[in-house]
C-alpha cells in the first residue's frame, strides 16, 4: 500500500523533487526553443500548465471509463482538445506572442510532460490529487523556463522582460539567443542542479555519521595527514 502524502506535498514535489525539466528530463523541445526571452518562457509555460492541469483533471475524472487498450489514444484526443483551445485563444488575444512562439503552442500536444503526467499520475489518482500534482509540475516548468529565459535574455540582449538592465557598455552575447546558447545554458544549469543535489547528499551523510559517532562514542578512524 502506497503511503498517502498530503496535498501540499503533492504540489511542492513538482517544484524541485520531480521537476519536469531537471529531474524527469521531459518537455525539452519547448524548454530549448522558446526561451529566447523571459516573456516567451512565461507564456509557453502558462499555456503548457493550462493544458496540463485541465487534461489531468479530465483524465483523472474519467480514468475508470477508459479501457486500458485505448488509453493513450484517448489521452491524446483530450490533450489535443485543450491545446486547440489554448492555440486559438493565444492567436486571438496575443497575436505577436503567438507568432514568436511559432509552431510550439500546437506542439504542446506531443510534449512528453503532459502525456507523462497523465500516464504516471492522473490515470491512477483522484481528481483532487491530479489537480495538485499537475499544478505543481506546471509551476516547476514555469520556474525553469523563466530562469533559462532570463539568463538568455540578460546575456543575449541585455534586457529582462524588455527593460534594459545591463550597463550601456555591455556587449550582448549573440550566441545566447542562438540555438547553441539554449543547449549550453540548459546543459550547464542541469549540471549545476546535479552538483547541488550531490553536495547536499554528501553533507547529510556526513552529518549522520557525525551524530552517530558522538552518540555511540565510536572510535574515530585516524586519518593520515
Amino acid at each position, binding site marked *: 500500500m502506497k503511503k498517502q502524502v498530503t496535498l501540499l506535498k503533492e504540489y511542492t514535489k513538482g517544484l524541485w523533487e520531480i521537476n519536469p525539466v531537471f529531474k524527469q528530463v521531459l518537455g*525539452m523541445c519547448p524548454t*530549448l526553443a522558446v526561451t529566447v526571452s523571459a516573456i516567451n518562457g512565461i507564456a509557453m509555460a502558462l499555456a503548457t500548465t493550462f493544458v496540463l492541469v485541465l487534461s489531468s483533471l479530465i483524465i483523472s475524472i474519467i480514468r475508470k471509463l477508459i479501457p486500458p487498450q485505448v488509453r493513450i489514444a484517448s489521452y491524446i484526443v483530450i490533450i489535443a482538445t485543450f491545446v486547440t483551445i489554448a492555440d486559438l485563444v493565444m492567436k486571438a488575444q496575443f497575436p505577436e506572442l503567438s507568432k514568436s512562439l511559432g*509552431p510550439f503552442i500546437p*506542439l504542446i500536444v*506531443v510534449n512528453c510532460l503532459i502525456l507523462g503526467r497523465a500516464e504516471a499520475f492522473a490515470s491512477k489518482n483522484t481528481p483532487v490529487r491530479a489537480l495538485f500534482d499537475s499544478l505543481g509540475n506546471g509551476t516547476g516548468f514555469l520556474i525553469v523556463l523563466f530562469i533559462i529565459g532570463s539568463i538568455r535574455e540578460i546575456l543575449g540582449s541585455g534586457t529582462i522582460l524588455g527593460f534594459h538592465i545591463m550597463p550601456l557598455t555591455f556587449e550582448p552575447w549573440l550566441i545566447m539567443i542562438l540555438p547553441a546558447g*539554449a543547449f*549550453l545554458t540548459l*546543459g*550547464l544549469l*542541469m549540471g549545476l542542479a546535479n552538483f547541488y543535489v550531490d553536495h547536499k547528499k554528501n553533507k547529510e551523510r556526513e552529518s549522520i555519521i557525525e551524530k552517530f559517532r558522538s552518540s555511540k562514542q565510536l572510535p574515530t578512524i585516524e586519518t593520515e595527514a
Partner: protein
Amino acid sequence: MEFFLLFISAAIINNFVLSMFLGICPFIGVSNKFSSALSMGMATTFVMVITAVVSWLIWHLILIPNGLEFLQIPSFILVIASLVQFVEMFIKKVSQPIYRALGIFLPLITTNCAILGLALLIAMKDYTFIEGIFFSLGAGAGFTLALILMAGIREELELADVPKPFRGAPITLIVAGLLALAFMGFAGMIS
C-alpha cells in the same frame, strides 16, 4: 534545382534538431549507440514522408474546403498515431528483419514532435504537394544526420572522464550546443 535547395535547407541549414529544436527527446534518448541511432533516424524519415503526404491531403482536400481549420491539431495527431500503428503492422507483415531492427522505435515516433512539427510547418508555409515531399525528405535526412553525429560523439564520450554531476543529460546537451555552433556555419549558404 529549387527542390534540391529546399532539401538542403531543411536538412542542414534549418536542421530540425539543432536549429529548430524539434525531436529533442529521441535525440537525447536514443543517441547513445550508433546502430540504434541509424535505425531511429531511418524509421523517423519513413514516417515523416508518409505523414507529409497524408496530412497535406487532409489539410487541402478535407479541412480547408469544409472550413474545419480548427480541427488541424486533433486530426493531424490522430493521423500520425494511426499511421505509425499501420506502418508497424505493415513492416511486420512484409519484412521481419526490418521489423526487428525498428520494432521498439516505431511506437516512440508518435510522440516525436518533429513529425507533428513537420506536418504543421508544411501547412503553415503553404507548400505545394511536391515541395512538401522534398521538405519532409530533407527534414528526415537532417534528423538522421544529427542523430548519428551525436551517437558517434557519445560513443567516444563513454571513455571520457566527465565530472560526475555532468554525466548523462547535461553533457549531452553541452555537446549538442557545440554541434549547433558548428551547424551555424551553414547559415547563409543559400540566400
